């Protein structure tokens, strides 16, 4: 009896072993099914593995004619996932431009492009919440020069996604494939003290739409009781009214340029009153009313070093005011502390060539470091140029962090991105190496081997004010 059960057990085991192997043989390109994933992403990885294997079996005949799967793996780096823990020596495997697996013991498929990141830092591609001169035209796929220097330089700065106007697009070097993410990110509002008529009109429009929505709700309730209930007139609900309706219903996001205290407070009140989501660009004096902005659930695109331009700036603190005013480097930190989702951008949103360590798009990570100088934590500063910037634009389902199923936009740097000495070595967009420092003429001469001692980060907020002890 015992013997038979033992034999049965062995048989079962044999079947269990044989089946995955045969499945594997039939589709050599797919990832091995028996594959332990890392701890933090074990759930998603295993599910991804099973789904892909079933997908390949169903479409294996069709796939023969199509292009083979495109694999790229970044191995051995210190992976900052942004939304998860930091993984040392982990592998990020991407398939056809999408992250397939993240973990310390990911098994690589036989034909896989490998980017060696051992001893380097791996981040999600940076998201520039504002940019000019990288993309061109109303549709970036039509007129963008995908070989242009601004694009290469932005990639050298680690940027993989940028916004221009209401369009978010990828920096796909040399191709327009999968370039566009979204063309209608938000609806731009103007509600400034400087133009009171426009203000009044906007307010009246909002009230009209709000009243309509209220009447509509009332009508829907009445309809159940009274069949003759009159439906509110919706003939006028076109153009701008339709957009405002979307805002109030919460299916769209508003965007406004606002930097002065008064404007910010006004916008905050307006968004609270009508209950729409708002992103403000600038928010120079936001730190003064950070609590109000936080309560109004406003997102802010800020620059820690406000572009003061040439000569005297209007944002220089003015002592004649009997209140706090002007810019401060602590803006991002204070806003963040009050729950405002903050995206950091440099003062100059284009790629400029009139000086190093500048304030242009190349130095997005450095700008985030200035936010750290103003009191933001390292993690929050990195989030402000990745996942939080993506969240502001509503594209965090595709970019901004390293997660299974998200776009394969990866930055490999030779140190902490917030350190001023750090150079980006590889920028990967949609699973393709879009920037390779050693190939481009821009920075290839700086630390050509790319290996250097990663500086220990101990001088962080709260800053040690006393001198280090000498011994």
């Amino acid at each position: 009896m015992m013997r038979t059960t033992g034999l049965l057990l062995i048989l079962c085991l044999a079947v269990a072993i044989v089946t995955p192997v045969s499945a594997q043989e039939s589709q050599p390109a797919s990832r091995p099914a028996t594959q332990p994933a890392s701890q933090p992403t074990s759930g998603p990885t295993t599910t991804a593995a099973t789904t892909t294997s079933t997908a390949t079996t169903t479409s294996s005949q069709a796939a023969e004619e199509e292009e083979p799967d495109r694999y790229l793996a970044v191995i051995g780096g210190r992976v900052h996932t942004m939304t998860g823990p930091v993984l040392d020596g982990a592998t990020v495997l991407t398939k056809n431009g999408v992250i397939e697996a993240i973990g310390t013991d990911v098994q690589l498929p036989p034909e896989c492009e490998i980017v060696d990141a051992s001893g380097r830092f791996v981040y999600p591609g940076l998201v520039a919440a504002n940019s000019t001169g990288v993309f061109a035209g109303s549709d970036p796929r039509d007129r963008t020069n995908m070989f242009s220097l601004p694009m290469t330089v932005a990639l050298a700065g680690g940027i993989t996604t940028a916004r221009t106007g209401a369009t978010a697009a990828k920096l796909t070097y040399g191709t327009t494939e999968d370039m566009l993410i979204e063309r209608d990110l938000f609806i731009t509002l103007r509600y400034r003290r400087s133009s009171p008529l426009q203000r009044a009109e906007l307010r009246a429009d909002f009230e009209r739409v709000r009243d309509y929505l209220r009447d509509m709700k009332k009508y829907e309730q009445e309809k159940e009781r009274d069949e003759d209930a009159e439906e509110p007139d919706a003939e006028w609900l076109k153009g701008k009214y339709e957009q405002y309706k979307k805002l109030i219903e919460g299916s769209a996001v508003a965007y406004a340029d606002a930097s002065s205290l008064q404007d910010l407070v006004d916008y905050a009140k307006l968004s609270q009153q009508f209950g729409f989501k708002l992103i403000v660009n600038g928010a120079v004096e936001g730190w003064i009313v950070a609590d109000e902005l936080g309560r109004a659930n406003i997102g802010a695109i800020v620059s820690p070093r406000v572009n003061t331009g040439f000569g005297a700036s209007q944002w220089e603190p003015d002592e004649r005011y009997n209140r706090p005013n002007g810019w401060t480097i602590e803006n991002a930190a204070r806003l963040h502390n009050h729950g405002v989702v903050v995206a950091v951008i440099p003062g100059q949103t284009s790629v400029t060539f009139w000086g190093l360590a500048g304030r242009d798009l190349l130095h997005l990570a450095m700008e985030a470091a200035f936010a750290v100088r103003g009191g933001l934590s390292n993690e929050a500063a990195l989030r402000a140029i990745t996942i939080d910037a993506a969240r502001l634009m509503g594209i965090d389902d595709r970019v901004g962090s390293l997660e299974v199923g998200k776009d394969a936009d990866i930055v490999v740097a030779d140190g902490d991105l917030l350190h001023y000495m750090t150079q980006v070595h590889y920028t990967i967009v949609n699973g393709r190496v879009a920037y390779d420092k050693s190939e481009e003429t821009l920075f290839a001469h700086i630390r050509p081997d790319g290996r250097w001692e990663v500086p220990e980060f101990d001088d962080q907020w709260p800053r040690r004010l006393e001198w280090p002890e000498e011994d």
Partner: protein
Amino acid sequence: MIRFSSRRNRPIERTRLTLLCAALLMIAAGGVVFDVGGARGVMSSAAYADEPANESVARTAEPDDPYEPFVVIRAKKVITNAADEDADQEIDNGMVVIANGKIHSVGRSLEYPLNAKVIDATDDVVMPGLISPVTRIGLPRYSRGGVHGDLCVVDELYPDPERFEPLLDAGFTTVGYVPDGDGFPGRAHIMRTAGPEDQQTLLSPAYLYFTGDKSDLREALKRAKQEIEKVEKARAEHEKKLAELAKKAEQAKQEAEEKKPEEGDKDGAEKKDEKPTTQSTTQPTSQPAFEPPKIDPALQPLVDLLQEKDAPGLKILIQTESAADYVHFAEVLAEYDVAHRFVLDNDWQSDFEYVLERFAEDEPPVLMQPVVSRVPYSAERINLPRMFADAGCELSLRPWRDSTRAHHQYRGRVAELVRAGLPRETALKAMTLLPARLLDIDDQIGSIAEGKRADLVILSGDPLDPTTRVRSVMIAGEIVHRVEEPE
């Protein structure tokens, strides 16, 4: 009898017999034919026997117009640029025999009638005339946008005897005149720079010229496709209608057959019957012919291209300013399959290097400028035309700017490419034969080969030597332009 041969030192004993036979044969054949033709000349004969003398005599026997005198150019060197790889590309101490404005024969020693006009260029070099495939020299600036496939430059040409003087000075015998404007401004007109007026046009209307961006190209092709769909839809509707009519006619026939036996009641039934009978009688005899809806004439060439109709010279020449432009256009052309060639504006700083691999995949012919560029944002110099030629593309060249000056500098610029590594033969062909092929006129011009038009240029030395001057230009077998010697 005149003999001439470059191989006089040949031991005559060895070939004496064959030579004699050949000479006799030739005289006989030539004499007979010339009697018939009534020509005034007496043929000279081949001086040596191992060339197929008989054949050449038979060839010379029937010129198109026997009264047309032959023209012979004797040159220090004849650059033939022949399409045939086995043929001589360059013939030292060669000669070109021209009859009727066309090349009759080219070689080292040939026979020609006694009365032939001999042009002595024994110090000079003869080569096919240069081609400026995309130009507006001598035409006024004129701009329009949109798609104008029904227009051709020939409509704006007015007689101007001095228009081509500067081009003739530079040795150009053929120009491809393009319309001015953005988008598809119209079709080109390929003509000679001189010669008899009735023979000036080589191909017209020729290629479609495109300058614009991706959306312009896509929109134009989309509209052309819609025109095709419109016709197809109308045809389908027409066929449906025909089928319906046939069905009705059959029904009526059946009804008529059914009603035939009951002819008794005529009062009400007759009127009812009338309609179907008239239909059934008229329809089968005169079926309505299909009248396709009119296609917008401005879009007609694009429609032809999409339907792959066989029209000589019909293709799109796409002005491409950068690598990104190429990527954009290639994307549109992957969607719409139309005959096209890329005109690359490779300037002093050009990034076409980035798309070289993609471009040269199918080894398409390409039209470029003779410019040694710099890699963008660096001091490194690259020879883009050479790179494209090496990658397997048939390289054609054109002056680097549409100005008289650039046309005069043309040979010098090409020489610069050769100095930077472009093979000499490729460069010479890129100036003559290959642009002719690109414009689909290589059956007429582009090389010195039998049957082609005698559009030649006589130079004081090698065409790629910077000290070389153009001495004279021949079009249709006549010297039409002489460049005066500088004092």
